[in-house]
């Protein structure tokens, strides 16, 4: 039976890469299924979170409340106990509360692939355009927080797996809001011989992408397809398909298939995480690299390659 579905989403990060993809998925669901949709921005004060949850849950008017952002966990746990009938979907992680719905992403898998590709290209040296002989690749993180460390961990493991002699230089901007700093960090990495820089830094990372164009080196985008931000300089993007996650959940709900507690994993296998090589770069990648990359993807899918998660 088709019912009118009402959905709220709450986060402090709707404007940043992954949040954007979530919002895209929600909006798509809204157009496709005509759901009611409410987006609530939490701001950045921890004191406010709990009350915002309560304001949403109190009216019992939302079938599903999507929650994104680890700093909300505490408030979420409390409010979900207060409103046991309210269904919350926690995006991007799994908590120890069995009554909740989780949409979990294996960003370390996609990052592993990104690291593998980057290190293999770097290892080619001057055989590949714009690559020097620095034998190093870079990483620019936003704040130095666990989820970003998880990206970095996958990236480092992938790089080491594919080309052990390529070094990974990682830096953090300390903020998601300072693209100028992101640009500067990337240029510093390029200057020190890292020819490929992976950004996991929200708007700060935009600076990284723009810096790759300025320095005419390579960057790797994150969360959404960033190939267009610096054509010719973006190797690919590690897509974290928040849009797919929310869209499928809502689709189930609308189809009368009520979403129930439990963990949905979005990984390479399910297509929730994906490494997309940019179209303009793909033809330039040597066959051996492509082949090995495919092997690696297969290894991850088979479970032959085990990737450690950052704590």
């Amino acid at each position, binding site marked *: 039976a088709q019912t009118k579905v009402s959905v709220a989403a709450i986060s402090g990060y709707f404007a940043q890469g992954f949040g954007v993809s979530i919002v895209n998925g929600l909006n798509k669901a809204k157009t496709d299924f005509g759901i009611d949709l409410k987006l609530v921005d939490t701001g950045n004060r921890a004191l406010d979170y709990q009350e915002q949850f309560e304001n949403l849950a109190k009216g019992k008017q939302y079938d599903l409340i999507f929650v994104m952002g680890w700093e909300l966990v505490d408030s979420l746990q409390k409010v979900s106990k207060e409103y046991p009938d309210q269904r919350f979907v926690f995006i991007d992680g799994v908590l120890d509360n069995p009554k909740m719905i989780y949409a979990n992403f294996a960003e370390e898998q996609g990052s592993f692939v990104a690291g593998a590709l980057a290190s293999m290209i770097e290892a080619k040296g001057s055989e590949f355009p714009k690559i020097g002989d620095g034998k190093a690749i870079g990483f620019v993180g936003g704040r130095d927080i666990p989820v970003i460390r998880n990206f970095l961990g996958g990236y480092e493991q992938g790089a080491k797996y594919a080309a052990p002699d390529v070094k990974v230089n990682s*830096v953090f901007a300390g903020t998601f*809001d300072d693209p100028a700093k992101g640009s*500067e960090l990337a240029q510093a*990495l390029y*200057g020190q011989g890292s020819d490929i820089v992976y950004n996991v830094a929200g*708007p700060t990372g935009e600076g990284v992408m723009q810096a790759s164009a*300025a320095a005419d080196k390579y960057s790797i985008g994150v969360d959404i397809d960033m190939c267009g931000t610096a054509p010719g300089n973006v190797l690919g993007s590690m897509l974290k398909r928040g849009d797919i996650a929310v869209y499928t959940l809502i689709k189930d709900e609308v189809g009368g298939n009520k979403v129930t507690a439990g963990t949905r994993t979005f990984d390479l296998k399910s297509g929730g995480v994906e490494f997309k090589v940019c179209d303009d770069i793909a033809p330039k990648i040597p066959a051996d690299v492509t082949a090995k990359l495919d092997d690696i993807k297969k290894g991850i899918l088979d479970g032959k390659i085990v990737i450690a998660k950052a704590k």
Partner: protein
Amino acid sequence: MEILDKLINVALIAATLRTTAPILLVALGGSFTTKAGIFNIGLEGQMLAGAFFAVIGSIWTGSAFAGVACGVAAALAFALAFAVLVVTFRANEVVVGLALNILAGGMTISLMKAIFGTRGSIVGHGIVGLPKVQVPGAQALLGSWAPLISGFTPIVYVAFLAVPLLVLFYNRTRLGLYIRVVGEKPEAAEALGISITRVRYIASLLCGLLAGLAGAHLSLGYITMFTENMSSGRGFMAVAILIFSNGDPLKVLAGCLLFGFADAFSLRLQTFGFPSYLVLTVPYVVALTALFALSYRARPKIIKETLASMQKLLSADRNSAQVDKNPQ
């Protein structure tokens, strides 16, 4: 040695110039108000408004330079509000400055949400960034050092060219002179019929002009996007520099280069495994240390002046001593 080579090189110097430019521009703007005797802690907000409206203008008109003009206009509006409250209504400079900073933060986010339906950042949407200027012959002339003079956006050149221009302005133009006089000795200005109010308004607006340029540079030059709070404390940094440079353009340049260098250098330090959060404090620690060190060092100057006046006095004293010894 190898580490040093990796740390200190042409790229670092070029990076220093890039990180310096926005702070330099906004600090040079603040130089006008500092010289005119106004403590302008609202630079941060003017810069942020400039950055936001530059992006809006760029999207709206499709031209980067029209965008810059929009950004400057917005910063001027903030500067005008500052001047009205501080100069005409004599409101407390710190209160007004801080409130305008808060206003700029809230306003940009509200407008972003109203216009783009989202907050956070504006990327794409047809923002046209400023072109990079390739100085002809730079490569031939300087070889690997070419990145030091070539490949920056126009506003970077404006920032550095503004330094000698401001030196000239303060030393050789009437308005520059009046700004200094109004800040240093308003009684003198008043006695000569120079309008203190008018000069302070002009100084505030000139400040807004450069702060707006600085903001536009952040969002259209340095990178091509707007992010909430993207001024990231650069305005406050500029205020610190202004305090110990007393607004002198050359000292402002020196201070900005110091912080630009501290910033660029600290970013590079991270790659050597120093904890990111500690490395990120470096520019602020440098600023604070400089502030304290210079206020401590102000003492020898007093001592020097005392010695000079003592010498003068000794001659004067001898004269009066003679008078005393020979009463008529």
